[in-house]
């Protein structure tokens, strides 16, 4: 019996599987490190450094970005600026319970191991997506 699939496609599938496995393992480790710990700081700094190096060194093939954006792209500014303004306002008002910042609201949600690992995975996947852009 012969395998009719192109060799490149099979290699791509293996690469994708390995990448997903690596990101999941990194997330599971990162999710186990508590906030404010030295290990958590060093871990996120090391991962960020490696991904930035990969993205800036040109070692990873990238998708070609759009040369120009349509005018409707400005719609993205509405929720981003609104959230940033709200975050800044709450921060300047002391980041208290009546004026919570986003990180203050996220802390209880990220306290559990699984939600923290899932959020870590989302952050890593997005970071990898930026490296490939």
């Amino acid at each position: 019996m012969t395998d009719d699939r192109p060799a490149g496609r099979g290699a791509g599938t293996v690469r994708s599987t390995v990448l997903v496995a690596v990101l999941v393992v990194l997330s599971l480790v990162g999710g186990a490190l508590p906030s404010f710990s030295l290990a958590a700081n060093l871990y996120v700094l090391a991962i960020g450094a490696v991904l930035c190096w990969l993205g800036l060194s040109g070692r990873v093939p990238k998708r070609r970005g759009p040369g120009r954006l349509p005018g409707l792209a400005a719609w993205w500014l509405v929720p981003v600026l609104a959230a940033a303004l709200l975050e800044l306002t709450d921060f300047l008002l002391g980041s208290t319970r009546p004026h919570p910042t986003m990180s203050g609201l996220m802390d209880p949600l990220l306290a559990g191991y699984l939600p923290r690992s899932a959020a870590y995975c989302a952050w890593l996947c997005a970071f990898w997506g930026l490296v490939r852009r």
Partner: protein
Amino acid sequence: MSVTRLLSISLFVLAGLVLTALEVLARREGSKIPTLGALAGFVMGYRAGRLPLGRIAVYAVWWWIGWHFFAR
């Protein structure tokens, strides 16, 4: 729960919903709205001479977000 807290949470949720709606709209066939990835790609294409300033800025922001939520 105080009114200001409820208002802050509601507005954060609303911003998240609008972001999600924009991404869904952007992924429709023939959409004139770019996806968030395409937008990031455009910003990362900005260079100051040989320096990939847009790429460095986007990486720095995303790196800081990870550090802020998972380490600080």
